[in-house]
């Protein structure tokens, strides 16, 4: 488990990360969300030891983290970095060996990852000659090459098409099933789909942190009522609810005393209905609310 504890980082007068604490638990994907400049990359670089914190510390399984421990982590920096003029297989083997793999282990591991991405036939190509999507795959392969103990991935999905995203998600689920995995992303729908835990930063401060389900639960009990043809405006007169929005036969209401059963009964009494359903608060909405 990665334990980020009261981490701060100052650049000159600017406090880029301000007293941020959260945990990245094993076996759970932790999404790291925030507007540009919120301090995500700075935090990740501090976790990886590429940048020293001004205050606070990172702990690993309860102990202060050491450079040796960090070297067992897999890291994908925000600004992609590999050798452009080096053959990709050779490159992966090199990184594996830097992490202490023997030549043969490194080679079979590299082949395994290349195979997963279906780019074995490009193994002897220079990185430069690959499409951006494939370059990204090599980048994630480089982060996974040494069977890391934890993963810190800065924007791993940016620039990927949906199919490539799926392939990468598959790989992460296979390789990092039991690992602490922290990844940042701007694609909230993706974060919503993948993440178990969520960390939201705004202006360098932690504004929300917890399991995604819980964070969503923090929003009001919101329901969508869709009438079959008739106008939904009558809901405005119903007691025990608060109407957020009415658009023709569809209405969005927050329960305020009324139970879901009572709401459904009232709707059925009013006329034929299409549905009464819980309107789960989309992540984007939570995001907008907490960073406001």
């Amino acid at each position, binding site marked *: 488990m990665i334990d980020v504890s009261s981490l701060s980082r100052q650049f000159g007068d600017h406090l880029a990360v301000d007293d941020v604490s959260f945990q990245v638990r094993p076996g759970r994907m932790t999404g790291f969300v925030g507007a540009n400049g919120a301090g995500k990359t700075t935090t990740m670089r501090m976790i990886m030891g590429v940048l*020293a914190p001004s205050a606070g510390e990172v702990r690993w399984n309860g102990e202060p983290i050491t450079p040796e421990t960090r070297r067992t982590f897999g890291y994908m*920096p925000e600004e992609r970095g590999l050798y452009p003029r080096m053959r990709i297989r050779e490159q992966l083997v090199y990184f594996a060996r*830097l*992490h202490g793999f023997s030549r043969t282990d490194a080679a079979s591991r590299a082949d395994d990852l290349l195979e997963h991405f279906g780019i074995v036939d490009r193994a002897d190509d220079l990185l430069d000659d690959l499409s951006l999507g494939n370059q990204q795959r090599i980048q994630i392969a480089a982060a996974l090459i*040494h*069977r890391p103990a934890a993963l810190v991935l800065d924007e791993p999905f940016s620039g990927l098409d949906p199919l490539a995203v799926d392939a990468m998600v598959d790989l992460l689920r296979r390789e990092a099933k039991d690992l602490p995995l922290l990844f940042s992303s701007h694609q909230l729908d993706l974060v919503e789909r993948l993440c178990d835990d969520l960390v939201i930063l705004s202006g360098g401060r932690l504004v929300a942190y917890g399991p995604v389900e819980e964070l969503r639960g923090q929003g009001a009990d919101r329901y969508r009522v869709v009438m079959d043809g008739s106008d939904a405006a009558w809901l405005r007169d119903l007691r025990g609810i608060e109407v957020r929005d009415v658009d023709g036969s569809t209405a969005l209401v927050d329960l305020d005393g009324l139970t879901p059963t009572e709401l459904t009964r009232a709707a059925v009494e009013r006329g034929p209905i299409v549905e009464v359903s819980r309107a789960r608060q989309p992540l984007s909405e939570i995001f907008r609310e907490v960073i406001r």
Partner: protein
Amino acid sequence: MSTSTPARGAWRLVAEREISTRVREKSFIIGVLVTVVLVAGAVVAASLLSGRASTSDIAVVGPEASAIVQTADGGAIATSDNTSFEAQEYNTADEAEAAVRDEKVDAALVPADDGGFRIIGLTEVDSTTEQALTAAVSETVLQANAAQLDVDLSELSAGTTATTSVLEPAPEDDGGRYAVATVMVILFLLTVMIFGLQIAQSVTQEKESRVVEILAAAVPIRALLWGKIAGNTALALGQVVLVVVAGVGAALAMGETDFLGDVGWSLVWFLVLFLLGFIAMATLWAVAGSLAARVQDINSTTLPIQGLLFVPYLAVFMGNDTMTEVFSMIPISATMVMPMRLATETVPVWQLGVAIGGTIIAAALLVKLGVRIYERSLLRTGNKLGYREALSLSAD
């Protein structure tokens, strides 16, 4: 969960990558080959020009003249000048003269009317030929006269020789020694410049392509620096050894063993000093590379290093002997100047000691300082850093 442990010998892997990437570059291979061919070719050409064997054809009339030419051919003058004389027999002095006129022969040796001999040339008689023939004539005739008079020639000539000796002999073959010295200086300068720029560039490219962040997360930054220094030093030393071997091989093939005996030790010291000096310089180049944010910045961040290289170079070629002596002992500059002095003069042992000791200390200090700056500047990818700025950075 994880099977990976940080590699202890990570610097070796870094060095290995530096080497394997470089030796696969066509430009590198071509550069090495061209240098080797140039140096070997220069040695062969110099050897041919300095001691080219020549043959002079001498037209002779009569068996006596023929014998004299033979004597001249085996004489000291012919040997020292690497010249051989060959007699072409003619029947009369006129025919011999005609042969000279038609340039069939280089000169003619004919009996003179007064009983001596006459050497005939076309426009002039080559001085070596003249001396060799004159000596041979006098030797042969003296011997003949002595025999006729029943005099022991060796007894007669006893005590007539004078030998010369000098107190401070100038090294033999001055030109060759200076040539070797110049080649060593230029070889060091070129190698350090070419490899140095290469080191700086590879560091900056790693910064620019951001691969450095992954590397830094995988291995200690000092391992990166050590690996770069080790790999490039091995390459540079390998190249220089190859060039020296090619030069020595060419000299051996040309039979210049005496000359090699004269300059051999300076070549050995050159390699020792080269190794030390290169390590020190490589550190500086790597640091210069780490200060640059983009490859374009390298020109300005490496400027101080280029100065460090060219100041002793200029001082030696434009300054006086005292200046050369001083620069031959200053660390790093010693790498260039000391082998040059060793090739051309007798250097006191203590001065060689100062040069080597100083360069070892300088290399150790520079590597230490280099690691310090490198660790601080390598991950600053934003913009170019100055040396002072880098030193004052906190350890991140």
